[in-house]
């Protein structure tokens, strides 16, 4: 049946061998750039609705105008962010085919299911976002609140499905290859591969952290500038509290994800930790530069990695020596990205402890929760820091899989589009995204300044604030 198709495939493989290095680099850069961009707005798209619902719910329950105004403000920002998230996500589905037709032509059917499910979830999300934003003043408050719930559920499910597809690239399951062709596909096994549980949970928690800390940053800055009224305090405390509540779970899940790698993708863990030689008593190296014999100039904790992986100093950790040099990921980049991510994680964990202490002290002294300037300044850094951690974590996943696009099955260079001129596409994409970035930031800033918030918002301030 497929004999008709095999001829062109042979040709395609031949052409892929000759693919120009610059076009391969351009394709990788374009995919990396548009994913790195989308992942931030996608996280806001998952997390911001939850924050908005929290503020709206509290506002309805207490009747407090500040919270209700805050909900409207966040909803308005959500409208803009969701739009850029939707379109930048669509481009990714195009790029899967435009840049990596070798991957999609062969394995498209294997990873189609999670994308189809993601499509449905995203559809539901878009539908209810339309209702939630545009029917704000048409529906009774409680029913309006209810129309926001599907956005949060569908957004989280979208993230789950799309990360399942990425997990499959790390743990390809659910198919048999015969003569380079896919036969016997089990799409459910492909979607629910071993990497799916740790990766999806890690990503969804990350989405809530990024949305929370980034939003909190905005209000931390406002409070540092002297706006310490109820509106700004709520705008800071709701997301910041959610963020620091999620963080300890994230640290735990991150540990699970790394331990998972030691069993399922040891090459990636070896790159993450800069382990070159397989053996017991492997130290944990923080920082350092990849040299000939391993990481140099790093801070070493004796037996650290063996202890983390197997709870005993004698635990054998597989090193990069088990794979040929051509199949090793770029160690320094992966290692530093990982260390940076972990550092941010522990910084945010410490911020949570500090907030807990502030809460505890208020219980004893009474009155408002005190928010020292230094605390606010660090919290303001927390938002951008969480984005750095997000990008680092994603870099670890992707760079740590190199040179494979499907781990152990297909190399990146065999998946790329052999058509000439991919470099031109990269430049176009860079220009458009640069313009979109500037416009997004500008519009969001104008939005905040265009409608100044009164010191003590009243009922009419809430009613007058347009969501759309």
């Amino acid at each position: 049946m497929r004999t008709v198709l095999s001829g062109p495939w042979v040709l395609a493989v031949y052409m892929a061998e000759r693919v120009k290095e610059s076009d391969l680099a351009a394709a990788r850069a374009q995919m990396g750039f548009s994913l790195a961009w989308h992942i931030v707005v996608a996280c806001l798209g998952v997390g911001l609705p939850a924050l908005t619902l929290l503020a709206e719910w509290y506002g309805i329950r207490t009747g407090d105008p500040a919270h209700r105004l805050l909900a409207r403000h966040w909803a308005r920002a959500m409208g803009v962010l969701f739009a850029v998230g939707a379109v930048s996500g669509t481009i990714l589905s195009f790029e899967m085919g435009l840049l990596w037709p070798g991957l999609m032509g062969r394995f498209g059917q294997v990873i189609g299911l999670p994308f189809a499910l993601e499509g449905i979830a995203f559809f539901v999300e878009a539908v209810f976002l339309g209702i939630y934003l545009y029917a704000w003043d048409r529906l009774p408050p409680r029913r309006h609140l209810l129309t926001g719930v599907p956005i949060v559920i569908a957004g989280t499910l979208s993230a789950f499905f799309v990360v399942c597809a990425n997990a499959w690239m790390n743990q390809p399951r659910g198919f048999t290859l015969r003569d380079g062709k896919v036969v016997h596909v089990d799409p459910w096994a492909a979607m629910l591969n071993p990497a799916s549980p740790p990766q999806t949970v890690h990503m969804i928690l990350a989405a809530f952290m990024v949305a929370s800390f980034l939003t909190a940053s905005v209000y931390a800055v406002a409070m540092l500038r002297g706006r310490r009224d109820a509106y700004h305090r709520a705008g800071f405390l709701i997301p910041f509290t959610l963020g620091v509540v999620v963080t300890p779970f994230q640290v735990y899940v991150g540990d699970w994800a790394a331990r998972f790698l030691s069993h399922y993708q040891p090459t990636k863990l070896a790159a993450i930790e800069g382990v070159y030689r397989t053996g017991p008593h492997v130290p944990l190296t923080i920082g350092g530069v990849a040299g000939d014999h391993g990481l140099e100039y790093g801070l070493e904790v004796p037996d650290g990695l063996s202890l983390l992986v197997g709870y005993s100093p004698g635990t054998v950790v597989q090193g990069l020596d088990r794979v040929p040099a051509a199949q090793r990921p770029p160690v320094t980049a992966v290692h530093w990205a990982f260390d940076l991510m972990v550092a941010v994680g522990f910084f945010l964990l410490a911020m949570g402890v500090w907030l807990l202490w502030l809460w505890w002290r208020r219980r004893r002294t009474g009155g408002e929760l005190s928010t020292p300037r230094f605390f606010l300044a660090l919290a303001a850094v927390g938002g951008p820091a969480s984005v750095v951690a997000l990008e680092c974590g994603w870099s670890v996943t992707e760079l740590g899989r190199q040179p494979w696009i499907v781990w152990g099955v297909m190399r990146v260079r065999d998946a790329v589009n052999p058509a000439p001129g991919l470099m031109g596409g990269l430049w176009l994409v860079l220009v458009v995204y640069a313009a979109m970035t500037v416009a997004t930031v500008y519009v969001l800033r104008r939005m905040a300044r265009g409608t100044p918030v009164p010191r003590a918002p009243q009922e009419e301030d809430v009613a007058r604030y347009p969501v759309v």
Partner: protein
Amino acid sequence: MTVLADAALAVMWVGLTCYALFGGADFGAGVWDLVAGGAEQGRARRRLIEHSIGPVWEANHVWLIFVVVMLWSAFSPVFAAVMSTLYIPLTLAALGIIARGAAFAFRKASTELWQQRLFGACFALSSLLTPFFLGAVAGGVASGRVPPGLAAGDVVTGWLNPTSLLGGVLAVVTCAHLAAVYLCADANRAGRPELASAFARDAVVTGSGAGVVALAGIAVLAADAPVLFHGLTHRALPLVVLSAVAGVAGIGLLIRRRYVAARAAAALAVAAILWAWGAAQYPAMLVGSTTVSQAAATSSVLWAVLVSLGVGAVVLVPSLWLLYATFQHEAPERSSPG
């Protein structure tokens, strides 16, 4: 196996039809935004357009993602072949999609005239270009210019050819026509009969324009895409006739100010022409090389995707109904600025 593959193709074609009817109209509305005139003169039209497509365009846009994902899940080799050979118009369409969606949201959120003008121009221009490139892609596929394999076709003439040009122009004119027809009823409901009459006039002009382009297209296809032409004049002929009849009826209904009925007629005309294309080249997916059953995924995948979509539809259909019902039954106009 073949039945499953046909079912998957049919579901994908339903998605494509929905995208043309809903997403296409949103693009068309952007075209009307483009030609609405200066800031003062075009304000009423632009407000109506914004009011009509604001709540629904993102949901409508998802139909495109649906089609893309169906194509790659159910017919992976065809997806790879089309995307790699036609990557230039598809990249341009993708960028157009970005510019349209983002600029629309930015304009809504802007208050100053110069920003509204800048984002508005971006929104309107990309609304014109995106359907053109998508139509050009359709033309490339329909005229058999995409061979199987990775970028095996000509990356330039694959979409710069008579049939692609026809597809692009027809897509733009059709989108504009659909939007004008839909906006007539919206304008009436918003209590703006003078706008409704203006859009009805535009709809008649674009509808006639689409007819003229389609007639000219007969000659183009006969010369440039003989296989498609043969299909359209034989097996798919009833659908072509249905499209023509519905198109003419729609124009008649517009002239008689039966705007809601005109919507149905215009939608039927567009849907019929899409299904005529499908019927004309069936069972070929890539004309001259690949049939539906050759390109289809294994039956386990087709089952999983179709069952998932069926279950998803149980959630989705009531949600979509709720969306359109909420905004097609007019609530009292809010006093919102901008």
